[in-house]
């Protein structure tokens, strides 16, 4: 029962990412050129992403069902790989500006990405747990990467303490699930008996608590604003796009594979979704720090995604094919959301200036005058977050609405609608500040913030993606909606 080559194929992306991470670590004492590490990291991220194609071509369960290489994991590997690639590009000027070591950052980034990849492909809870820890522990470190910054270290501390706290719940949930089903493989949890098992129910509840924390569902969301604010902005960009997507991926896989989970989780998701939307949007209403505002907005969007989860439950009754639109809603939303958040945080990162001083909304006043293209790009992101047509965010929201309405979750849809309006207010506020207020005197006098090529590439990529998926979501959707998405 030794691992076969094909098993390696099925986890190739993670191995590649880890490999490049190790490589970066090993080279660190010997190479001084930071460009080298950037290059290495880019290649690593790309290579891993490319490797996900191979692993998708060798679709199937790996390691006797610990992982599953299918279109679903392919999608998420592509997503997190791309996110990692873009984050490297964003981080390069940031690290240089803040005078932070390169090699370690990239190594941690790649390890985190690998962890997310594991989460996305895991079909067994322990593997998932290890993946989760890989991405989490890397994240803790990355959050505190600006060691001399009080905020950064505090962010790391909070993330670490609370993250570990939540992980303990997750783990306890695994224990209970294991106890009641006798296995940790998701595929082994299909039995009818489990519908009546209290242990299993409690275990799933605990797992939901752990993962709810990771995806920042209210009332677990409290850590998010602090951590997002304190972490170095490129890392925040990673946080909002990567780990969250990975955690959702795991949730989705549990949903798809464990019938009892859909059974037990439905109302929990209903309630969490409602709470999360309101917590995020209402909290964001009063924020004046852009980074923090975007953090709250992340919470709100997690809430929207959870609406789709509630819909998944409902649709899953009629079989995987019926639930496909709801899965599609989640996946498409995560995609659009990742693009947008990444872009937005990129701009925040760049405009923050040395030591991340310019994060206040006031610093964005008159941005459209000073740096029209940047303002336009940020507007595109914000409008996408707001869910305006011609952006990917619109389709994301549209599909969620559709899933919700399909599942007769009208009230949830209505709550989401109300939240969309609340959300519109603060997104617009940023646009208003950029376009309708005049720059402060010193901001106007200061030279425009430089946007190096790498950052511009990220912006162009994300804007183009946002608009492209906003106009032609076909290809992605066709991919997502294929019946063999989840490999079984």
């Amino acid at each position, binding site marked *: 029962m030794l691992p076969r080559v094909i098993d390696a194929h099925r986890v190739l992306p993670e191995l590649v990412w880890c490999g490049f991470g190790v490589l970066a670590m090993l080279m660190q004492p010997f190479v001084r050129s930071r460009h080298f590490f950037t290059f290495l990291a880019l290649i690593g991220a790309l290579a891993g992403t490319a490797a996900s194609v191979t692993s998708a071509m060798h679709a199937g369960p790996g390691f006797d069902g610990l992982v599953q290489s299918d279109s679903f994991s392919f999608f998420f590997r592509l997503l997190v790989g791309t996110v990692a690639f873009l984050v490297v590009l964003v981080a390069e000027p940031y690290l240089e500006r803040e005078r932070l070591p390169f090699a370690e950052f990239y190594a941690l980034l790649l390890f985190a990405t690998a962890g997310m990849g594991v989460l996305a492909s895991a079909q067994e809870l322990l593997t998932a747990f290890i993946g989760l820890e890989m991405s989490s522990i890397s994240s803790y470190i990355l959050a505190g990467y600006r*060691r001399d910054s009080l905020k950064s270290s505090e*962010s790391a501390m909070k993330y670490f*303490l609370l993250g570990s706290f939540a992980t*303990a719940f997750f783990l306890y949930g695994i224990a209970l699930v*294991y106890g009641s089903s006798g296995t940790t493989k998701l595929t082994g949890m299909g039995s009818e008996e489990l519908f009546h098992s209290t242990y299993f129910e409690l275990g799933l509840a605990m797992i939901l608590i752990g993962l709810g924390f990771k995806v920042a569902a209210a009332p677990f969301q409290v850590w998010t604003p*602090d951590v997002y604010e304190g972490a170095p902005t490129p890392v925040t960009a990673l946080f909002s796009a990567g780990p969250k997507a990975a955690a959702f991926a795991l949730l989705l896989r549990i949903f798809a594979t464990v019938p009892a989970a859909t059974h037990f989780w439905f109302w929990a998701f209903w309630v969490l979704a409602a709470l999360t939307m309101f917590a995020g949007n209402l909290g964001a209403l009063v924020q004046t720090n852009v980074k923090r505002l975007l953090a709250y907005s992340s919470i709100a969007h997690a809430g929207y995604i959870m609406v789709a989860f509630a819909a998944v439950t409902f649709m899953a009754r009629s079989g995987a094919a019926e639930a496909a639109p709801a899965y599609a809603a989640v996946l498409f939303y995560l995609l659009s959301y990742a693009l947008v958040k990444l872009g937005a945080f990129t701009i925040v990162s760049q405009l923050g200036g040395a030591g991340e001083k310019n994060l206040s909304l006031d610093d964005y006043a008159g941005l459209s005058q000073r740096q029209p293209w940047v303002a336009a790009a940020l507007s595109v992101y914000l409008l996408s977050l707001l869910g305006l047509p011609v952006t990917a965010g619109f389709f994301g929201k549209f599909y969620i609405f559709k899933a919700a309405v399909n599942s007769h979750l009208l009230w949830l849809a209505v709550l989401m609608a109300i939240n969309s309006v609340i959300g519109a207010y603060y997104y617009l506020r940023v646009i208003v500040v950029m376009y309708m207020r005049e720059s402060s005197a010193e901001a106007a006098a200061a030279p425009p913030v430089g946007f190096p090529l790498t950052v511009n590439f990220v912006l162009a990529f994300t804007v183009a993606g946002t608009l492209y998926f906003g106009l032609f979501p076909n290809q992605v959707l066709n991919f997502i909606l294929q019946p063999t998405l989840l490999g079984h």
Partner: protein
Amino acid sequence: MVPTNYYVILSAILFGLGVFAFIFKRNIITIFMSIELMLNAVNLAFVAFSQPLGKVDGQVFVLFVIVVAAAEAAVGLGIIILIARNRQTLNVERVDLLKL
């Protein structure tokens, strides 16, 4: 023989105490220790479950958890040192720059 439930109840109590400790302790290190307590509770549950199931994988999980705990300890203590160095305190309540 000791019923498995007993172990599981004990693990629940320990887990609860861990949660309790997490909330009530102010020293970051102690808080971290309470996490370790929670992980220990989980381990107990794993082992307890593995016995009646007649499978060793529960024990294997414990090993993994211990490894992860070790890793967490390394990173966590690193972070604690960082905080202590930056803030000159280990009181978690004094580390509240980020809020609202």
